[in-house]
């Protein structure tokens, strides 16, 4: 296949390995070593994308991560990826890509009609049109659908990504960010000083800017020597295709390695990308610099490119994107570009905004036949679907046209507005930037103590040998700071002779925008091509009073999304400065935030997805539940049996049957998820006395007691039973949900406030299983399986425990009831739990034993009016929940003072009541309660907390919090569910629906 713009010779491509790729149905011939963008240019593809707002045709603009235009959809099906920058997409055979942000395609885009509407889509268009009185109206709803589709970037995939991603933690002494000349020198120097080094390079090859220099030249020899040196150093780890996207506190860096992004399908068991979390002691930022565009009318036309990007395409990829080229610059760095372009066969005109240029710069170009235009700039690009010429003018000191313009015919315009050092990571660390007049750029304000050193172009160092030296020094200093060893001799390769004209930091003239005499432009002149932000938008924002650079950024969207100020920053700032008659540093710069370049969410998630998103906790009896067809439910991290359906039962049928069975026969529920805390030490009783509202000092060994804890602000925190196992040994239980929180809270009290108390708390939640055995036959069942204990009502009344064995396994049996039935809790070491559970069921067959799940457990406790999570919701007091009687009047406890704040003591607070709901449907928790005499709107009088069908009462019931609740027993109220739009009626009753005297549990 013919590649019209491919040079016969040269480049760093492998001409023996020809490949084919697809873009928008067109076949692109390429070689290994190409990028998608270099292949597009080699094949003469001009229009590769459409603009964001106006859908103007756009071509490849750069040769790196800063690419604003050539964003494409990559691959297809589940591996589809939006917004891939063609300039950094490595070419591989069979690569499929399509244009985005255009319909039906980039070459003919229907939305390009927006160009005609351009005067109406200026800065703040969305704010002004939709955030005013119409916001939230049907008009906005109607428009939004279309705007969202027509705007925006690429289309995201909606099916699951089939590839794997993984995370790696890494540690080193010196992290070197960037594998260009300065970074390579830094890695060598730090390594030679004995530091453990990690070197990260975003490109597939090491070399950075050296890869854009002529093949086989002096810089290549130096690069080869450095690579050879690194190969011999086993304390330097090199990761290519790896971008540091974020710099975080305490020298932690986030990086993404594109392990297998350069193939269609990663090899089996290999991740597509790898997320590196790197903890280092020192880092060297050798992140290079990004060339700045120039601003003039129609500077977004396909065929307008960055000057040194064109140089990259010529030298690295052997692609000459134009034959007749107009180069425009305001600094030295375009001169070497011009020379390389002429040698590659192009006809070049060079415009320099500066009037006087040193002879050593322009003399060699004159000899090569370059047409020089000192003092000139480009006023406008000619041509609509591609560059056909450049309108050039003499400039005054403000960049305004001086005198008439003339047109040079050309097919490519290459621009250089100087360079922007990549200081994103520096800025992310919260370190200061300082404006450097000489390079007209914001540079790191260095301090000796900083653990982040800078070197090379990131420091505005444009000279190659100087960059190598800076890298060497930074690497040495970073290593010295870690090892403490000074004066280690290092040996970093250098250039044999200096390469002149790379020194872009010198003599830059701060003119970036070219306008007519009156400051206007011949057409749209973009400061941010990615977001279609034109000079006129900056001017408009200024007229509307936007002064702060941060406001300007948000109002105009300059430098947002993937650009992050890479290309647009200085041009926008310079225009603002000009309008405000201030210097650029006075205007300031915006803050850079991670990520430096876009990263896939998949890489950050790694394998923490689906069931692996967090740990799953299983009780020791889990397998039995599964084997017995339990439907499981997630309770925090736990999996618990929800219900055990029999013969195709629905959940409602199953829980009603299970609850009824417990009241008639005997049931067992796995309560192993309860929080269990060993509270031990001579001051344990004093400690319990302080954290629980009730008294603990008189609790005898062998007894247990229900306790309630308050937060310090007087709100109920948690409840549970605590048993006294020995003189200084207590066994506390907490609710499942609060287990970890309560342990941390108790540790906090003991370690920060009550350090004089001799108490130790230890979580034993995982060490013990717990089963509640409940129902009229509970005692008979346990009598049948237990040995060594008298379980009679006389020997073991409520709130006492005994030690016994079941099948030879030691167990502790607490007599206590949550269900309201005669009930026991069996505590057993986790390792034996499954065996004990099976024994219970074996012996229980003759007692008609059944397991029951959390749903019926809830029904039973609601029937008894016991509070749980829905009632202990972080807003309720002891009084609200009917638990005030538990609180000691004599001893102080946590929360005892603040619980008597005025608002918490008010009689009108909603209090716990029961509701008997009329009709055949249950209530919905959260439904609001209204007085039947009042309107069903405005402030409610209460709400439903826990609802169920009660098999014992044969009606739907609910616990609720209701204002003046205790005085309203017998009253009818309305229950309003504003979500489901239903109204029910109910009778207010005591929350103790069933067996309020407790006869059954005391039986």
């Amino acid at each position: 296949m013919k590649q019209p713009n491919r040079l016969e010779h040269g480049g760093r491509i492998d001409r023996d390995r020809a490949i084919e790729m697809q873009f928008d149905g067109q076949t692109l011939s390429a070689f290994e070593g190409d990028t998608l963008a270099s292949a597009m240019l080699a094949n003469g593809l001009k229009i590769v994308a459409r603009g964001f707002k106006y859908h103007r045709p756009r071509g490849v603009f750069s040769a790196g991560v800063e690419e604003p235009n050539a964003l494409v959809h990559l691959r297809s099906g589940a591996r589809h990826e939006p917004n891939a920058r063609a300039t950094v997409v490595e070419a591989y055979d069979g690569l499929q890509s399509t244009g985005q942000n255009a319909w039906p395609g980039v070459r003919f885009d229907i939305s390009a009609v927006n160009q005609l509407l351009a005067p109406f889509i200026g800065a703040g268009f969305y704010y002004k049109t939709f955030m005013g009185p119409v916001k939230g109206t049907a008009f906005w709803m109607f428009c939004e659908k279309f705007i969202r589709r027509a705007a925006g970037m690429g289309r995201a995939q909606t099916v699951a990504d089939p590839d794997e991603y993984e995370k790696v933690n890494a540690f080193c002494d010196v992290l070197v960010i960037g594998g260009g000349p300065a970074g390579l020198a830094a890695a060598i120097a730090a390594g030679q000083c004995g530091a453990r080094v990690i070197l990260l390079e975003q490109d597939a090859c090491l070399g950075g800017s050296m890869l854009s220099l002529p093949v086989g030249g002096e810089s290549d020899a130096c690069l080869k020597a450095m690579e050879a040196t690194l190969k011999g150093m086993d304390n330097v780890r090199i990761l290519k295709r790896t971008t540091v996207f974020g710099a975080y506190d305490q020298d932690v860096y986030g990086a993404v390695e594109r392990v297998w992004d350069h193939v269609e399908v990663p090899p089996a068991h290999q991740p597509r990308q790898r997320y590196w979390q790197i903890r280092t002691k020192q880092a060297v930022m050798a992140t290079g610099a990004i060339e700045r565009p120039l601003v003039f009318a129609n500077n977004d036309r396909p065929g307008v490119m960055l000057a040194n990007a064109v140089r990259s395409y010529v030298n690295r990829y052997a692609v000459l994107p134009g034959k007749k080229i107009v180069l425009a610059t305001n600094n030295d760095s375009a001169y070497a570009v011009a020379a390389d372009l002429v040698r590659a066969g192009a006809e070049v005109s060079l415009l320099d905004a500066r009037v006087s240029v040193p002879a050593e710069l322009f003399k060699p170009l004159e000899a090569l036949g370059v047409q020089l235009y000192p003092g000139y700039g480009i006023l406008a690009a000619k041509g609509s679907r591609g560059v056909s010429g450049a309108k050039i003018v003499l400039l005054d000191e403000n960049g305004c046209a001086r005198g008439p313009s003339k047109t040079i015919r050309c097919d490519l315009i290459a621009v250089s507005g100087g360079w922007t050092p990549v200081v994103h990571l520096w800025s992310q660390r919260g370190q200061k930037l300082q404006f450097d007049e000489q390079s007209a750029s914001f540079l790191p304000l260095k301090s000796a103590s900083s653990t982040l050193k800078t070197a090379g172009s990131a420091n505005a160092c444009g000279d190659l040998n100087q960059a190598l030296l800076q890298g060497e020094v930074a690497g040495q200093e970073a290593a010295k700071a870690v090892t403490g060893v000074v004066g280690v001799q290092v040996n970093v390769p250098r250039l044999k002779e200096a390469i002149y004209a790379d020194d872009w930091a010198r003599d830059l003239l701060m003119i970036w925008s070219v306008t007519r005499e009156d400051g206007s432009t011949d057409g749209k002149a973009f400061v941010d091509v990615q977001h279609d932000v034109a000079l006129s938008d900056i001017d408009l924002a200024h007229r509307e009073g936007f002064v702060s650079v941060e406001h300007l950024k948000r109002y105009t969207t300059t430098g947002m999304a993937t650009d992050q100020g890479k290309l647009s920053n200085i041009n926008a700032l310079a225009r603002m400065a000009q309008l405000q008659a201030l210097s650029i540093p006075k205007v300031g710069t915006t803050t850079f935030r991670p990520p430096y370049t876009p990263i896939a969410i998949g890489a950050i998630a790694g394998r923490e997805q689906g069931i692996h998103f967090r740990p799953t906790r299983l009780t020791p009896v889990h397998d039995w539940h599964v084997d017995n067809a339990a439907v499981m439910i997630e309770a925090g991290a736990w999996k618990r049996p929800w219900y055990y359906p029999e013969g195709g039962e629905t959940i409602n049928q199953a829980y009603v049957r299970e609850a009824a069975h417990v009241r008639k026969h005997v049931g067992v529920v796995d309560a192993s998820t309860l929080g269990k805390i060993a509270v031990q030490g001579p001051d344990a009783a004093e400690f319990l006395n302080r954290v629980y509202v009730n008294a603990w000092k008189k609790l005898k060994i062998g007894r247990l007691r229900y306790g309630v804890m308050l937060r310090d602000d007087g709100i109920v925190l948690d409840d549970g039973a605590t048993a006294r196992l020995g003189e200084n040994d207590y066994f506390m239980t907490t609710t499942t949900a609060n287990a970890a929180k309560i342990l941390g809270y108790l540790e906090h009290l003991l370690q920060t406030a009550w350090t004089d108390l001799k108490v130790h708390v230890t979580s034993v939640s995982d060490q013990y299983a717990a089963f509640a055995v409940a129902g009229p036959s509970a005692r008979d069942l346990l009598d049948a399986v237990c040995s060594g204990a008298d379980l009679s009502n006389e020997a073991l009344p409520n709130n006492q425990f005994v030690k016994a064995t079941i099948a030879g396994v030691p167990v502790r049996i607490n007599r206590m009831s949550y269900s309201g039935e005669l009930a026991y809790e069996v505590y057993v070491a986790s390792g034996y739990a499954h065996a004990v559970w099976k024994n219970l069921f074996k012996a229980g067959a003759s007692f008609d034993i059944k397991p029951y799940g959390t749903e019926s457990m809830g029904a039973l406790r609601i029937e008894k009016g016991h509070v749980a999570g829905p009632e202990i919701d972080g807003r309720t007091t002891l009084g609200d929940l009917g638990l005030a009687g538990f609180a000691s009047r004599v001893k102080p406890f946590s929360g005892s003072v603040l619980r008597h704040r005025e608002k918490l003591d008010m009689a009108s607070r909603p209090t716990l009541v029961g509701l008997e709901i009329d009709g055949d449907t249950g209530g919905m928790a959260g439904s609001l309660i209204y007085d039947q005499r009042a309107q069903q709107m405005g402030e409610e009088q209460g709400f439903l907390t826990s609802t169920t069908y009660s098999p014992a009462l044969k009606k739907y019931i609910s616990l609720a919090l209701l204002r003046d609740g205790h005085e309203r027993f017998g009253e009818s109220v309305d229950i309003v569910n504003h979500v489901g739009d239903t109204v029910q009626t109910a009778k207010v009753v005591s929350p103790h629906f069933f067996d309020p005297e407790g006869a059954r549990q005391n039986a």
Partner: protein
Amino acid sequence: MIRINCPVCGLRDETEFTYGGDASVTRPPIDDTQLSSWMDFVFMRDNPRGEHREFWHHVQGCRQWLVLERNTANHAIGSCTLAAGRGT
């Protein structure tokens, strides 16, 4: 992410710890019945820009409560000591 030098476990990632509030306030004695002392302790906080002392709990390590000096302006970490070591 910040990294915390636990006096028991050494330098560990923030993800192993949970933040536990302002360490510069002192809990009133349990038998203090003054509403104002408890109101101050529970609700009143300075919001300093700069040096701050905070409780951090090494929940996934030694389970010790730590007092960490942290600069709220730049996240610089200072000393880290056991809370239990500071007396009552």
